[in-house]
């Protein structure tokens, strides 16, 4: 999911016999459910892929602050405002934990930030969609956080220790996010005609983009196979997408809302819902920078970074002066 844009390295997954002793020991440790820690030996590909994956995940969290942050100042009650603010703040925290996990792999947060701001590194496609009504706060919490949780829960068992630990903390904190979204949806769906209309409209706009969050089908992807062998990817994209649809449909029914997919149907034989694939052309457009809000999102992050430079430098300069004064006094 947060690796939805990571390109294949093109190399197949090596068998244990093909590996040199060092790599073989590494892979056997992972196979046995062991954790890889920062100072341990690891293949270059593992390190590089993790940096990209964790980095993109971190970027997704902080760019993800923007569509919901868009409604903090318009939240309809004091309690809703506090809840939404706490949630968006959590996303900043999650970005922070993830950047720290990436830093253990030998990259700095500033470097990752620069790669985000220049467009070199990506973030999840979902955050390039606009939030237009208050019901979108419900839909984002319910669907987007719901999809994110589905991906993040298994990642708590990922092979890289710092990433797994960050994920544990994130999952613990995130448990209220999806519920607050659904809670908003319940209020809207059982509310006035206008609120119901907003709720349905939000579901209509976010359903497809939410399905895209899991990335295109990766059944035959060499890269996915490698990531799964390394346990930095725990499930296939299609598997998670199916699970997501299966969970969401009854939730939508409870709300009295219609999932915008005429082909959606329970398949008794498979024990799953059949559903229409999202518009993958649109997905690739968004990845190429042509989503509805790509420009605004990157502009906002760049502005915060540029406008904040004097603050970061100023506090750093003061800390250096304090240290110098302390040394002089000793």
């Amino acid at each position, binding site marked *: 999911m947060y690796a939805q844009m990571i390109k294949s390295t093109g190399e197949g997954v090596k068998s244990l016999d093909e590996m040199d002793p060092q790599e073989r020991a590494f892979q056997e440790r992972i196979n046995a459910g062991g954790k890889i820690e920062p100072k341990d030996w690891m293949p270059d590909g593992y390190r590089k892929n993790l940096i990209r994956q964790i980095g993109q995940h971190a970027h997704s969290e902080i760019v993800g602050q923007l569509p919901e942050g868009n409604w903090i100042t318009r939240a309809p009650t004091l309690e809703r405002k506090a809840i939404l603010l706490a949630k968006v*703040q959590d996303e900043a925290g999650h970005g922070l934990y993830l950047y*720290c996990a990436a830093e253990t792999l030998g990259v700095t947060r500033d470097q990752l930030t620069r790669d985000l701001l220049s467009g070199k590194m990506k973030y999840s496609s979902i955050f390039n969609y606009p939030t237009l009504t208050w019901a979108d706060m419900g839909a984002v919490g319910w669907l987007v956080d719901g999809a994110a949780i589905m991906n993040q829960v298994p990642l708590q068992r990922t092979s890289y220790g710092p990433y797994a630990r960050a994920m544990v903390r994130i999952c613990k904190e995130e448990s209220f996010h999806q519920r607050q979204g659904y809670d908003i949806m319940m209020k809207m769906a059982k509310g006035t005609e206008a609120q119901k209309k907003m709720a349905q409209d939000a579901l209509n706009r976010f359903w497809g983009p939410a399905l895209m969050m899991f990335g295109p089908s990766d059944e035959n992807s060499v890269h996915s196979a490698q990531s799964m062998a390394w346990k930095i990817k725990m499930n296939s994209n299609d598997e998670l997408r199916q699970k997501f649809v299966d969970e969401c449909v009854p939730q939508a029914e409870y709300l009295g809302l219609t999932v915008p997919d005429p082909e959606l149907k329970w398949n008794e034989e498979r024990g799953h819902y059949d559903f229409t694939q999202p518009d993958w052309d649109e997905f690739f457009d968004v990845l190429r920078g042509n989503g509805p809000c790509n420009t605004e999102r990157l502009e906002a992050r760049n502005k915060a970074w540029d406008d904040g430079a004097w603050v970061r430098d100023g*506090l750093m300069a003061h800390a250096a002066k304090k240290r110098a004064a302390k040394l002089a006094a000793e």
Partner: protein
Amino acid sequence: MTNATQEWPLFEIFIRGQHGLSHRHVGSLHAPDAEMAIKNARDVYTRRNEGVSIWVVQASDIAASSPEEKGSLYEPANDKVYRHPTFFDIPDEVGAM
């Protein structure tokens, strides 16, 4: 895109919770100095009343054992099973011990 002259250093954060357990590593963050790191830790890592005492240490000041030493450091303890309470069978009739 401007580049700050120097990134704030990384600090490792240790928090002691309400229940009398030792300080525990909870994560890391960036701060201009140790004082601000404590304040940042309060804001970042105790948002849900997790802690009552915070230690911070600059990550570059931490000395860590290297993975190659793992065997020599930890394996000698592996055969001292008698250090663990489960080594001793106490009959159920004796009660909790």
